[in-house]
């Protein structure tokens, strides 16, 4: 299969290791991977702020670059939700409406692609640690991704998966984190407390943006917890 990997802007800038791990895993499975330079952002920041015209300016660019792909794997549940769920809405009544719907049908968040589309559970990874999984809200509730990352984690050698008491938001929420920083931080504190209760060494997630929020708080206040993206765990040996 020829896989088009979509690396969102913030993963490109701050978490390149996540994209590299995904390439490694997908190629190891025998698939060809391409990564178009010009598809850089899904337009979600403007979209979520209510500026749909400005969001379309960015999104149309990405849509044009990805529309002919066989399958698109997205390195974030949040951007995945944007392209799968919200692109059809954003482009409703525009000339790109049909293309947006078609693209939505072939977009997959990374863990969803592995577990559901490819039906893979064991990637032969080894990661000896106690970890807890944080569900990014967009992945969990817009894309209904729950079991996929857990199945993959359960097959990692040496890894012990423990659940948090709740599936609560980490408080990132895109521009919300900057518009209401104190509420956002309070939410991160609640999230971290729940993760700490599990006694885990790592919080694993499929969304680097959630991890940026959680790690950002841990780095500020100190703490033993570490964050790591699912792809990095699955690529470890």
């Amino acid at each position, binding site marked *: 299969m020829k896989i088009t990997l979509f690396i969102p802007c913030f993963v*490109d800038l701050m978490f390149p290791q996540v*994209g590299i791990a995904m390439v490694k895993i997908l190629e190891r499975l025998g698939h060809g991977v391409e990564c178009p*330079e010009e598809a850089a952002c899904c337009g979600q920041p403007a979209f979520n702020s*209510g500026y749909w015209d*400005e969001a379309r300016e960015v999104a149309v660019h990405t849509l044009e670059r990805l529309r002919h792909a066989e399958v698109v794997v997205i390195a974030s549940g949040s951007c995945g939700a944007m392209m799968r769920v919200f692109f059809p809405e954003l482009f409703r009544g525009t000339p790109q409406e049909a293309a947006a719907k078609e693209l939505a049908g072939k977009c997959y968040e990374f863990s969803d692609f592995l577990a559901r589309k490819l039906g893979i559970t064991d990637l032969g990874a080894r990661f000896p640690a106690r970890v807890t999984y944080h569900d990014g809200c967009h992945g969990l509730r817009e894309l209904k991704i729950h079991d996929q990352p857990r199945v993959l984690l359960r097959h990692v050698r040496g890894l012990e998966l423990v659940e948090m008491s*709740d599936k609560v938001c980490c408080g990132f*929420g895109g521009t919300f984190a900057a518009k209401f920083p104190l509420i956002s931080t309070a939410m991160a504190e609640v999230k971290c407390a729940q993760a700490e209760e599990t006694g885990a060494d790592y919080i694993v997630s499929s969304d680097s943006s959630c991890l940026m929020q959680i*790690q950002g708080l841990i780095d*500020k206040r100190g703490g033993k917890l570490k964050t790591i993206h699912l792809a990095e765990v699955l690529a470890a040996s």
Partner: protein
Amino acid sequence: MKTPAREFKERAAEITRDLRHRKLINTALRNYEGVRDRTRSAYRDWPAARRAAADAKREALGGLDRCLEELTRRLEGRGTKVHWAGNGRQACDLVLQIVKDKAARSIIKSKSMTSEEIHLNEALARAGFEVIESDLGEFIVQLRHEPPYHIVFPAMHLTRGEISDLFARELGSAPTRNPEDLTMAARRALREKYLTADVGLTGANFAIAETGMVSITENEGNARLTGALPKTMITLLGIEKVLWRLEDLALFLPMLATMGTGQPLTSYNTLYGGPRQPGESDGPAEFHVILLDNGRTRILADPEQRDALQCIRCGACLNVCPIYRNVGGHTYGTTYSGPIGSVITPHFRGLQDWKHLSYASSLCGACTEVCPVMIDLHHHLLQNRRNAARGKPSKLERLAFKLFAAIINRPWLYQLAKRMGRTGQRFHPLIKGGRLDPARAWTRTRELPPIARESFKEYWRRRERRGR
């Protein structure tokens, strides 16, 4: 004067630091979640129950004019006086007129968020009437001169100790930490009031068109006393509360209880069909029903958000909302707080003044997931943002997004921005978290990861070159 947005931010800044508040609310709501889940698990097919409930509400709202006419006809057929109020002021005037006609002095009330919405207590007090809240939680917040903290649990932000102190001060009761003793203290104060009140005022949870009845759900029996003891009963309800069939209650009463408090069924569920009929032993001599619009038809006319009228005010969306759990009910400055409040308040009180509530959300969707009548709550927040930006865009924000689009759509410019960012971030520690820091909103409370030495796209270009 401070804008509602400014006030919201200031109150939020204060209360998010209040760890005692956070612990109190989280503990209470975690307990609620446990009980709710246990009760909900008794449903054989919860998703089907949600669909049925949403359908029943949609059916009533789809023909709301006919549904309300039928309700009115049936109610009037048994001697109820039905009044229509276009807005809160009209509804308050109607109540005032009735209590004046009855030469009433004292009014006893059972719980009604709709009366909070139209500020009825204030209107009655201004006109010189004594108004007593008979629901325990409402009674407590009334003594404190504050609005309810939560749609269902008005006094959940208070500890037993605080309530004991309040009662000792206001009612002269002996200090106690025992909930039963506290309830008894309130009951002693309230029993007097029931007997002397001339008018009883209630809200309603549902109204049934086919039988012409008003349905009231409560746990303390206070609404029954409010309806039964005074000679005149007034029920105030929003027009969206009406359902077509009596059998719909078989679905809605357990659902409201399950999601509201985690009970399989609320302790008292009463149907009111009119004033005391000849040969009946109790009930009010006069029964008035006030049907309130107050912005509801505006929601009805909104094809995207009409489902917001399906709300049964169970409070489940507040309970799961991580924003609500951190800022609490009073921070919103609205009658209806939490996700449903953020959705409907702009319709009631103006989008531009109340749009900040739609932005004060991480759009996590926990509310939509839990809503028993399937209101698409968090997507409505997104639509409110779109409508707000369309109506009155922020020049600065629009410029920022345009600039971002111009950069991100051009690989060479994006590459240049990356390089500049890498240079710039070397000096970031000098200003980090301070007033000059452009990322201050983030860096005051969190660390920001640096731009990587080699971005993914740079890595990919290097790899492609090597490959070739």
